[in-house]
């Protein structure tokens, strides 16, 4: 391609146009989070639904300039109302629940909306209609730029201005800013929180829907938009500074330009450049470009935990009974169940490693699949390209992932609470995109095939025992770590950053190491997983997989050490039951939502409340 000045100008303007939709989603997300403290994961889904609804509305109205813009605005209103529906019917019941559970409910909504969209709108990618009057191109020094891009470039600053006026010049805006700064105080002053939350949810969802609708002529509509968008929106929010709407615009422009120019430099994955920029911004300004230090610093996921107790005799006996059962399993059940049990054990190890970070470490990760899938890909690539034997691959994979976790952790520990969680999700999405887009090396969507265990372990029963030894061993080692000085230091860092600092402990360094430890064990689980399946696909690194692990930990209950195992067993069994149906994501989403509403403490947590005394140590 001939690269003239005109080419660069057009590339720049394209970047600005791409930034518009991203800005709308990100500032909607930021507004909702500011007031309700909900990280609405369904925001990307709102964006996707906005695009689809606009497509059908524009098609439904007759041709004409009016129909196009009316369709877009109406689509945004429809999405706004969907948002209100979700807030009123679901989230309002959960405002008292821990934030992590609210967040989980919104992920249930993501799954439900994904399947509903597939059912309503079809799995085909849709090409957007052209905007009437803006279907042509402008010639900029020999390079063509679609006229519609110019419209997009103007829309974002326009919305930015309107939002600024709304927040700074209206009574409603003052209430929103007051609630963002101090929700309890605004409640105490008699502001109707319910109505405020609902109206903010409407505006936020409206903006997401509008974002999806206006990019329709440019990007069309497809079913991958939801998770791609939410990850990018997280990056924009983190780079721009939480709660800052001008910051969101600035960051959206930076990300848009990176996407536009990044293709020229690194066509395999523009997301890698996004990562680099985010990394640089976080190192220089941990609170984002225009964010304020301390904004949302009080956002934590949890209250104080109980004192750690060593396992009682009864609990040890129960564990022993389980071990014996696992040992004799191959005699009792068939190959199919054995494979399922192998999978459960590996997921249990992976979710135990997530628990290690979340429970004692107090660091929630939305991106644990990066470590699990990273382990799987590390092992698969070693076997595929270097013909590494299984034994060595299973040893190297955890170490490589540990290194990856150390790098990711180094950035993530600069933030805390929900921001850290957002960052982990963004990193995981970047890892996924590298694997997904870099087809020549990783096989892309087709994955890597024929990764089988060594000869001696190829028998299903032998592999079952190998997996059990390594994963139960891993789980017990992680459990042991919790009782060591390092485990205690992690808990100290979670309990009080101030006190930790004043007794000479480097909080960031210990948290970073906790990332690495968790990464090593998740990598081990992933490495073994490849050999149990014989293949690996990008899905193992995708956001839904991260949420599977999160769900296993939450299902088991965050407060208990053996919760993750119970959670992994329950989840894998459940998944196996429903994955044969057509709309399993819908069912899974509904289960997520229902479980969050019904058991905010998780399964083992609930058992703990009822039976805890039975298993408690008698001598205390």
């Amino acid at each position, binding site marked *: 391609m001939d690269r003239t000045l005109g080419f660069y100008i057009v590339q720049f303007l394209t970047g600005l146009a791409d930034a518009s939709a991203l800005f709308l989603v990100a500032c909607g997300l930021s507004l909702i989070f500011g007031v309700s403290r909900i990280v609405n994961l369904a925001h990307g889904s709102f964006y996707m639904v906005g695009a689809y609804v606009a497509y059908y509305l524009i098609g439904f109205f007759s041709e004409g300039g009016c129909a196009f813009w009316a369709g877009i605005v109406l689509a945004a209103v429809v999405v706004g109302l969907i948002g209100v529906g979700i807030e009123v019917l679901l989230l309002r019941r959960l405002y008292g629940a821990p934030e992590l559970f609210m967040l989980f409910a919104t992920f249930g909504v993501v799954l439900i909306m994904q399947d509903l969209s597939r059912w309503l709108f079809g799995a085909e990618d849709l090409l957007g209609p052209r905007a009437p009057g803006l279907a042509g191109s402008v010639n900029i020094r020999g390079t063509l730029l679609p006229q519609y891009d110019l419209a997009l470039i103007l829309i974002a600053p326009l919305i930015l201005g309107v939002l600024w006026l709304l927040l700074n010049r209206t009574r409603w805006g003052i209430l929103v800013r007051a609630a963002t700064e101090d929700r309890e105080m605004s409640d105490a002053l008699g502001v109707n929180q319910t109505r405020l939350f609902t109206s903010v949810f409407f505006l936020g969802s409206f903006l997401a829907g509008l974002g999806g609708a206006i990019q329709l002529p440019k990007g069309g509509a497809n079913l991958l938009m939801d998770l791609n968008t939410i990850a990018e929106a997280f990056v924009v929010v983190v780079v721009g500074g939480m709660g800052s709407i001008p910051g969101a615009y600035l960051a959206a422009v930076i990300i848009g330009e990176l996407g536009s120019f990044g293709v020229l430099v690194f066509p395999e994955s523009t997301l890698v450049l996004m990562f680099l920029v985010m990394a640089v911004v976080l190192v220089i300004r941990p609170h984002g470009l225009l964010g304020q230090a301390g904004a949302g610093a009080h956002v934590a996921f949890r209250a*104080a*935990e*109980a*004192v*750690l107790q*060593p396992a009682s005799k009864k609990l040890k006996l129960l564990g022993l009974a389980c071990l014996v059962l696992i040992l004799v399993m191959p005699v009792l059940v068939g190959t199919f169940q054995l494979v399922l049990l192998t999978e459960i054990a590996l997921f249990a190890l992976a979710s135990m490693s997530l628990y290690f970070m979340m429970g004692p470490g107090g660091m929630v990760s939305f991106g644990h699949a990066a470590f699990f899938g990273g382990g799987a890909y590390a092992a698969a690539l070693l076997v595929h390209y270097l013909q590494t034997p299984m034994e060595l691959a299973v040893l190297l994979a955890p170490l490589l992932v540990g290194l990856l976790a150390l790098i990711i952790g180094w950035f993530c520990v600069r933030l805390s609470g929900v921001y850290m969680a957002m960052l982990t999700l963004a990193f995981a999405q970047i890892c996924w995109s590298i694997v997904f887009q870099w087809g020549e090396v990783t096989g892309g969507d087709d994955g890597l095939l024929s990764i089988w265990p060594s000869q001696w372990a190829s028998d299903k029963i032998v592999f079952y025992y190998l997996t059990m030894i390594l994963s139960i061993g891993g789980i017990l080692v992680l459990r*042991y*770590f919790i*009782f*060591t*000085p*390092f*485990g*205690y*230091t992690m*808990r*100290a860092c*979670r*309990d*009080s950053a*101030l*006190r930790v*600092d*004043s*007794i*000479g*402990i*480097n909080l960031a360094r*210990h948290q970073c*190491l906790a990332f690495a430890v968790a990464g090593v064990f998740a990598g081990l689980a992933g490495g073994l997983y490849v050999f149990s399946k014989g293949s690996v696909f990008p899905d193992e690194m995708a956001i839904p997989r991260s949420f599977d692990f999160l769900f296993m930990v939450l299902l088991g209950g965050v407060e208990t050490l053996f919760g993750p195992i119970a959670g992994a067993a329950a989840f894998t069994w459940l998944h196996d039951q429903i994955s044969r149906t057509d709309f399993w994501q819908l069912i899974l989403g509904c289960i997520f939502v229902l479980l969050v509403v019904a058991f905010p403490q998780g399964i083992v947590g609930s058992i703990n409340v009822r039976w805890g005394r039975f298993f408690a140590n008698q001598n*205390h």
Partner: protein
Amino acid sequence: MTKLLEVRNLAKAFGGIQAVDNVSFELEAGQLLAMIGPNGAGKSTCFNLINGQLYPDRGGITILGQRTNGRKPRDVWKLGVGRTFQITCTFSSMTVLENVQMALLSYHKQTRSLFRKVRRLYVNESMELLELVGIAAQSRRACGVLAYGDLKRVELAVALANRPKLLLMDEPTAGMGPAERSQLMELTSAIVRTRKIGVLFTEHDMDVVFTHADRIIVLNRGELVAQGTPSQVRANVKVQEIYLGTGKTPGTAFPTS
């Protein structure tokens, strides 16, 4: 006498508010120095500046001969500074014993160890510290359920774990009854005398201050108004004005209609 702490022309502003303005003082080993002043005088800001939580706008802080401006709290701690907080700050998911063990693990550079269980590490040393501050009987209780006065004692035990030369105690007796207060301050004085350390503390109870402090510095609106021995400070006219008023009737803030 060695100078443990030297503060020179310290200043810190938050936006337009000059929280600490041109404050200078010294603390020698074996001394209890009280910092007093009304609410908002800048006492806690001073503490946070010395401790490293805040970065001063101007001025210098020298602890044990080393300039510590801009050093992080954990580096200041390494010089031998212990700290207790105005609002208690302990690890609420750990027992009293474990809180002290944590400080000792850090002192012995063991926090990254993945081998031995904490249950067996530095138990005797921790119990000695708990005996010293008088809460050994509660060593197995979680800090999350402790009474406020007891938490203050835990903080003192934690602060003593690194064998500090300098102790910074921000309102060490808040939330305690009168008998408990003087008991804790007597304990602190005893530690100061036997270990030859220095203590800088703030306190609202003037009985405690004038009974136990060797020297007193008085802050008002960020400025140092007086310093000296308790009797000198007691006789100071400015201090009397700050605490007792000037005797003039204030403006008609509450007009009677």
